[in-house]
């Protein structure tokens, strides 16, 4: 948490100096100033939007920043963006490391959306596509180092679909297997439960923007 604390300090100072955004930000954050800075929006150029969100450009155009999705979320996973979000100020997003989306079967957030920024017709949580989990730091992944961690896999709400385990021989010990978590982009909904659960100080598995579909005709 050291770096984020530092970051929030700097940003906070700058943002107080800027002054003009203060009233807006307070209104949007509803007092939860600290939460504004836990994850920089620009770190991955990606906001984790609530389930059923349109493609980012269309989402920003459609979202009326009413906060009804956040009100509907039983886990308080959905927060409204603050000043640092720039044009996206006041839009809903999820900070998975803090509170991920737990994929309520009836998707109350999407149902609550009056503008169509979130798809109200979405019924099946497995069809949600908020983003895709990626192991961004393989060297620091305990499972890939042969330890029996695999917390991301066991906590995945689409266990054995979005994440599976591929055992392979651990050459270092000679008698154990490395249980590699493998993420399947066609199944991962991007809920961020894995990112939340990762036991490292900096999660080695995070949700990122889903890669564009690239078609070919190879079948395995």
């Amino acid at each position, binding site marked *: 948490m050291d770096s984020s604390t530092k970051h929030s300090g700097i940003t906070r100072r700058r943002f107080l100096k800027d002054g003009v955004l203060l009233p807006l930000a307070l209104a949007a954050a509803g007092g939860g100033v600290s939460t504004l800075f836990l994850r920089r929006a620009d770190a991955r150029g990606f906001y984790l939007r609530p389930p059923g969100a349109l493609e980012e450009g269309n989402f920003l155009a459609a979202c009326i920043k009413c906060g009804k999705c956040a009100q509907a979320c039983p886990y308080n996973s959905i927060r409204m963006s603050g000043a640092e979000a720039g044009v996206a100020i006041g839009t809903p997003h999820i900070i998975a490391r803090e509170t991920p989306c737990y994929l309520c079967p009836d998707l109350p957030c999407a149902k609550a959306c009056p503008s169509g920024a979130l798809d109200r017709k979405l019924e099946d949580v497995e069809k949600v596509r908020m983003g895709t989990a990626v192991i961004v730091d393989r060297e620091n992944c305990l499972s890939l180092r042969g330890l029996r961690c695999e917390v991301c896999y066991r906590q995945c709400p689409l266990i054995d679909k979005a994440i599976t385990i591929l055992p392979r021989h651990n050459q270092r*010990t000679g008698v154990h297997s490395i249980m590699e978590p493998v993420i399947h982009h066609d199944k991962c909904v991007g809920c961020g439960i894995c990112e939340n659960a990762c036991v490292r100080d900096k999660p080695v598995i995070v949700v990122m923007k889903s890669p564009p579909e690239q078609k070919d005709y190879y079948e395995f």
Partner: protein
Amino acid sequence: MALSRREFLKASAAAVAFAAAGASVLNPKVSEAGDAGIKWGKAPCRFCGTGCGVLVGVKGGKIVATKGDPAAPVNRGLNCIKGYFLSKVLYGKDRLTKPLIRKGDKMVEASWDEAMTLIASKFKESIAKHGPDSVAMYGSGQWTVFEGYAALKLFKGGIGTNNIEPNARLCMASAVTGFMTTFASDEPMGCYDDLDLGDTYFLWGANMAECHPVLFSRMIDNRLKNPDVRIIDFGTRRTRTSQMADQYVRFNPQTDLALLNAIAHVIIKEKLYDEKFIKKHVVFKKGKENIGYGLEDKFKFTDDPKPISFDDYKKFLEKYTPEYASKLSGVPAAKIVELARLYADKKRKVNSLWTMGFNQHVRGTWVNNLVYNVHLLTGKISRPGENPMSLTGQPSACGTAREVGTFTHRLPADMVVTNPEHRAKAAEIWGIDVKRIPDKPTYNATEMFRALDRGDIKVLWSQVTNPFQSLPHLNRYRKGARKGDGRFVIVSDIYPTKSTEVADVILPSASWVEKEGFFGNAERRGQQWFKMVDAPGEAKSDLWQTMELARRLGHGNLFPYKYAEKEIFEEYRKFTVGGKDLAPYEAYVKARGLRWPVVNGKETLWRYAEGHDPYVKAGEGVKFYKNKKDDGRAVIWARPYEPAAESPDKQYPFWLCTGRVLEHWHTGTMTGRVPEIKRAYPAAVCEMHPDDAKRMGIKNLQKVKITSRRGTIILPVDLNGRGKAEKGNIFVAFFDETKLINELCIDAYCPISGEPDYKKCAVKVEKA
């Protein structure tokens, strides 16, 4: 981690260099690891019975890092996620650092002298008024060998009561009685090498993927190397183990008894047994049937074994046709035949592995007997790569509870209080009058807490365990502890727990490497470690606490030690010579553990096997030499199928099963204080089958009310989690101290082992 990754890596490299150079990482005092200033020492992991070796990094009087010990044969540098966070389990913010004495509703800080004076006075008063059987010690498979030994010696040899039990009664007792009735000697013949050497693994009621994580990865690696390896998971719940097994065989709870008899039936009918082996190494016996469930207070049972012939046994098995077992178990008859043939396949090296599904079972002893039957019929036992292997739950359930014998009926090294020769041997080693050791066992764990509830036990001391979260039918025993009327409960622990809540005195304990220790793991491997850091505040080891009570009760002469740990070990070792044969203490200081019997400095990988076990003579091949009564043969038991103590009915239509998850250890008092683990798995859930949920209109994550005849709990349902309940079953883990699932469990137990059945009771589920 207090260390940066770079520092950590540097320090690790230094430790490896030390190991390579032959410098000692055994005693942290002498192994300064270069510029990082971290001293590394060896210890076994604090958690499960696997017994992974770790290196503990100490700096500034604190544990700053741990890592898997590359030189440890069990894990070769690996750990599971619990082991990874060992450096944090002792440093929760609310660590107990001062003795606390109850004053009304408050716990007030006191000095050790005040606390021990009060405890000693309560012991004296109770013994004077109500006799020595009114005081009791409830210990643990997480006791070090020294702690268990000292408690046993004080209670049996000093105070003169058999009121001592370990929490291992709740997890391993059926394995013990299984071994004792079949082989007349506790603990497995095989070892972890069988995970590398076998090719067929039958798992019974064992979620090895989560509960023995490092061993599981070893078995899976065997399959990666050898595509012929088959892993068959018999279970009542689809687990991570089932997911990676070649076959998952679902059966109805309790019907493992019928299945194993049906497997034996097929082996006999198709003449797949090893006639020569049976003739030479096996006798047949039958015991009592309809043996009850231990539900009523002061339940007593004594088996009455009768010898029978092979033909009698065959006759007994006639009823257990695959069709009959199929009707009971839900496993197709053809599948039973197929798996019986696989068990008996002469080309295959077959192993059976089991844990709590077998042991926490109202017929736990029987089902242990029955799995040995199959191995004895086929002769697939005591050979490298093919053995039945009882996997252990706790780090020293074997080393302390079983080998030291901290059960009401036991003395060290498989001896029992009911045998006058055994009492005489103990009295001789302890230098006491043999009359001091009472010859009748008193209470098993459940009965001990029933006696506290009734008021027959007045003073109860709990060490290194959390009974007031972990006992079945918990409400009764939690209430019982606070009934007053002279009842006095002492709890030694490192954190506030559900048990310290009901205590009259709380004693702050030293844990793990805050004291010198010795654990024995599931493969008979004894492992020693030194004290590496001071315990916080005024916390003291349980060994010190027990010896201090002894001194105050006038039994100080039983503990005349200068270097208590080593001297206790050498004294205890006298019990083991000529049988379990532990090595001298110094040997364990040097080694990364040794598997007993250790004779002439050589450990034993396979017991009862010629060329491996020093007690088997040349030409004998296999000899079950411990069972002198039956001329060195093992026993095949005719044990029938009998139903569970409580089965689902109209009112309570679901089976409830409880258990563990990989992330948390037992009642979660340590792992729950590691923020990373707590975040990874914060709270208990109720696993349920999606069809059952749909029928009842319950959606995933929705809260449900679960009710048994004994208690109620509200939990969110998990329809698609790591564990998948079968139809008509639910599963709840027991680590969550805010959700006491054990309040619902039934306190029925196996009449022979006294081990409760946490895997089967009837509940109803409603929308909350």
